[in-house]
């Protein structure tokens, strides 16, 4: 496996007043890896992710994302990552075509590049007949596939997925993971949070955040062995149960 490190943090912390949202997290993520970032509501996942995306300046510690520093090079970080969440991903009142053009444009791609790639993408998704339709009118499962494809349209080094599969039907959820695997095979690092514990099993490695700190980091198989658990659900329950912080 390619051991190029694309995310590296060292004692990365974020304080809000007296509250330590993220407490000295240190970890590495490799190129092409599917990395699961787990934790209960309120464990500090969102705050940590915002720092990794260059959206929030850390209080202390170090981190390099795709080789760029989270204090100094936040704009470079943003150009080299993709981001998708269940809550926001696409502009509902733009068409499929317009959304792709918009995302390509803000990531600095030329019109010609956008045109060439968007035709290929639309064909791959099998949505040739939907390009002129407003995204808001498309089924949720389609939207999520388009959103993911838009998030990696500019071939970022890393794509951050914040609960990408909430609420979709079981088949679409699996098709979505096919896209994730495909992106990882192309060398894109996938950094994903989820509340579905079966999806945690699809990750190469997982970290588990409790009360702002990373309490465990390993492959799903090793974590299950370590906690003598039959499923990731049990591992998660064992770890998160001990949390002191109450929700969100």
């Amino acid at each position: 496996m390619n051991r190029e490190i694309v995310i590296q943090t060292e004692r990365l912390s974020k304080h809000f007043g007296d509250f330590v949202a993220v407490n000295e997290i240190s970890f590495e993520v490799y190129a092409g890896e599917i990395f699961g970032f787990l934790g209960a509501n309120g464990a500090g996942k969102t705050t940590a992710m915002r720092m990794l995306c260059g959206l929030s300046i850390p209080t202390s510690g170090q981190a390099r994302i795709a080789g760029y520093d989270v204090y100094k090079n936040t704009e470079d970080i943003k150009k080299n990552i993709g981001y998708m969440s269940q809550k926001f991903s696409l502009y509902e009142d733009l068409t499929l075509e317009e959304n792709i053009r918009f995302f390509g444009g803000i990531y600095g791609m030329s019109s010609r590049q956008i045109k060439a790639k968007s035709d290929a993408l639309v064909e791959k998704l099998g949505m040739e007949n939907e390009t002129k339709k407003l995204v808001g009118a498309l089924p949720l499962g389609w939207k999520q596939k388009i959103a993911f494809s838009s998030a990696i349209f500019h071939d970022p080094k890393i794509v951050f997925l914040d609960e990408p599969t909430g609420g979709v039907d079981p088949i679409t959820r699996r098709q979505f993971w096919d896209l994730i695997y495909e992106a990882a095979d192309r060398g894109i690092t996938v950094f994903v949070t989820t509340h579905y514990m079966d999806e945690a099993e699809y990750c190469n490695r997982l970290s588990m955040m409790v009360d702002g700190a990373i309490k465990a980091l390993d492959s799903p198989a090793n974590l299950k062995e370590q906690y003598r658990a039959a499923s990731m659900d049990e591992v998660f329950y064992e770890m998160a149960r001990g949390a002191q912080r109450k929700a969100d």
Partner: protein
Amino acid sequence: MKDVVLEHITKSYNKGAVRAVEDVSLEVDKGELFGLIGPDGAGKTSIFRILTTLLLADSGSAAVHGFDVVKDFRAIRSRVGYMPGRFSLYQDLTVEENLSFFATVFNTSIQENYDLIKDIYEHIEPFKKRRAGKLSGGMKQKLALCCALIHRPEVLFLDEPTTGVDAVSRKEFWGMLRRLKEQGITILVSTPYMDEATLCERIALIQNGRIMSVETPDNIIASYPHALYAIRSENMNALLHDLRRAGEVASSHSFGDHHHITFRAGGEEAVQQNLLQRLREAGHRELSLQPIRPTIEDCFIQQMPA
């Protein structure tokens, strides 16, 4: 007695362009914990809104606790508790103010029904002076449940109460629902999480506005029509691709650390061995194949129209 009855309910939006609920018939017994299981867009919220008298169906009839949702809407409103999917308490009132507001609206007081919400309210009581808008997701959920319960409703409607909530808080929440059920409250709850289906007494699997089946979770699982197997190897992604190309494999879906597969022709021992042999030759290591009991998610996938 049936506490919730839907008969041939249909609801469409945008002049019929969006068919949200298609001919849904359903009965929920008094005191039952009943689950509507399906993804976003399945029609769950429309059904809840029709039953809570907030939305008129295009056709069909429905009754809650013996009252018609159209004729007797007032009687229903005072007898049901409704927790919508989107947080809809007053963000700029405190926890305590919200609760006392809902109690007052229903002509009761917090004290009168405190025993019903005590277990849940204790979790948020330390923050009773905090504005609802400043609460965490888990605490908002508990406050919303308290507000839906404060007038001691006969029927409780919970629309996706656990969406976006972590696995630990979800378990806690279902524990609360079981205790409410013991108090005799009928509960209709919806969820997109298939693993929560087994926590209900009966469930309806719903997709694209249509009910696919209504049964106890055990019976739904028992009626799964095929023999189901779990298979794994060192490289799960490659395995999935190879399984999809294997002619004897009828269906293959990833399920966490295994793929679940069915065979076209029963999957006799010889067919299985042949498949394993070919996968070994294709380079798969540490292969294992074993028969398993389907989960609700397997059943849902099987029942989804192609």
